[in-house]
């Protein structure tokens, strides 16, 4: 410990959950660069019902233990909570918050990247055949927790022959194979704007169809019309569904454009959304020398 200045505080990566796998990989990346860096469990088991709290499992804190200055990388859905005094962050010592979530709407957050849900999903993505013309399903599917607008849209029975919205749980491998079989992957906003599902659709090389990203931002931009196709948001579920279906129909008529977007999205995933992509992005922007 005598030469140690920097400490990585995060949950151990035993679970295969992607944020902690990224934190561990980032540590492996940095451990020989700035002296004896150590990796400590941030005691996430004792979090106080608030994932935004500084012991929450979504965060990696890199701290200089002499000066107490720190930077934090977070995949928490409400990254802006880290700016809230209730969450026990010593904001005066904070030299940077890195996240894609809320990065467009909060100037104190440096845009970073986002990931798949866990390493099993990334492995399944790596193993699947992403050839565009092998994607046989041309209809739309949304599989996920149904609440809010997702629930309301899913209840519109008259459309069930062209769009499936359901919450039945399947294995990770089945889930990835299912995503991969669809030319166009639908993603609906949930509790946060950006979702693991977005990254997973990009990773299987299908066209990501989702509401335009308004509050999320990335170090390497994820652009509507380039990496994904966006549609307008309407609070009326019937109108919302009609907007989605109209966009979907228009897309199906333009195969070249679908291939262009799908390939751009896959490239973006490889260098930003995969585990290694996240590590590359973070290593490009973290500047840990500022902590020394």
């Amino acid at each position, binding site marked *: 410990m005598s030469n140690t200045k920097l400490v990585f505080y995060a949950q151990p990566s035993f679970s295969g959950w992607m944020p902690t796998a990224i934190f561990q990989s980032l540590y492996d*990346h940095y451990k*020989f*660069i700035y002296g004896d860096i150590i990796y400590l469990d941030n005691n996430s088991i004792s979090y106080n019902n608030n994932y935004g709290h500084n012991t929450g499992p979504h965060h990696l804190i890199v701290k200089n233990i002499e000066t107490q200055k720190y930077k934090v990388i977070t995949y928490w859905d409400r990254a802006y909570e880290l700016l809230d005094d209730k969450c026990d962050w010593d904001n005066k010592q904070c030299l940077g918050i890195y996240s894609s979530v809320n990065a467009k709407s909060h100037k104190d957050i440096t845009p970073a990247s986002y990931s798949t849900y866990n390493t099993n999903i990334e492995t399944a993505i790596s193993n699947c055949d992403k050839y565009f013309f092998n994607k046989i399903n041309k209809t739309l599917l949304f599989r996920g927790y149904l609440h809010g607008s997702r629930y309301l849209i899913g209840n519109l029975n008259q459309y069930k022959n062209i769009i499936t919205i359901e919450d039945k749980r399947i294995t990770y491998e089945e889930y990835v194979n299912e995503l991969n079989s669809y030319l166009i992957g639908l993603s609906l906003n949930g509790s946060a704007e950006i979702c693991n599902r977005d990254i997973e659709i990009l990773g299987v090389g299908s066209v990501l169809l989702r509401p335009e990203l308004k509050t999320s931002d990335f170090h390497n931009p994820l652009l509507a019309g380039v990496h994904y196709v966006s549609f307008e948001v309407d609070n009326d579920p019937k109108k919302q569904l009609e907007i989605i279906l109209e966009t979907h129909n228009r897309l199906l008529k333009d195969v070249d454009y679908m291939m262009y977007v799908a390939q751009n999205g896959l490239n973006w995933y490889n*260098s930003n959304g995969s585990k*290694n992509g996240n590590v*590359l992005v973070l290593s*490009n922007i973290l500047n840990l*020398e500022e902590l020394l």
Partner: protein
Amino acid sequence: MKPIYFTTLSLGENYTRDYTIKLIDQVLNKTNHSFALTTDCPTMVRDYYPNNDRILIDTISKKDFKIRLPIGSPEGPATDFNFNIRYRCIEQLLSIEKDFYTIWTDCDNSLEWWHEETVQSFFSTIYDAGYDFLAPRNSYKFIDFLVDFQSKNDPRHGIFWHKIFNYDLDTNPRPEWNDAPLPAEYMLVFLNSKKLISFYSQFKWFHDYLANKPYTQGTWAEGFEIGVSSLVAGYVPYELGWNHYILSKAIKANGHKVGHPTESQ
């Protein structure tokens, strides 16, 4: 672990003694890799490192090149160092048959830190993600410059304006170069040695084109020639952030600079 060749151009005794020798020393002591040097002072280097097979030397003579090119008119008096001579750094690497990485740096930079496993892991991760040409400012494209340049009524706007006139792009536009990156040229990493031959050929083309003109508009910012050459060779650019440890901790810009006036002999 892939072999890595550091390479640089070192002309003149002052630069070679005060900068290049120190850089070579750091590479030999901090890494297990080789240094491919292009220089007109081979004896000086051999005197420092007799019989060292980790140093490859491509000997050139100033008499074989136009070391300085006139600016503004054939008679001068203003001249600029012919930065395009840097293409020669690649020449001796072309005969190496095995696959290797190349780190191409200015001779007055220093190598302050090295950890083999970390650097190799970083390079292979980047390569696996689909990229094989790393440099700062690689996200800035020639088309970005052109759009900005053409929006201003100033023929000297931006840092690459002189390239328009040096290569007659005002009368003979080359839209096929629009996607070329415009890297900051003091530190470049090539992760695919098979593409170097095409890169070299295009960069030499730029050298010959400019050296055969009666005068230039200046030769600085060879990131243009490097970027176009990388595009022609099929390299896929990756932008290294200015704070990335490869730039801020390993290869340090001007790390050995002591303030020599630019060579004029």
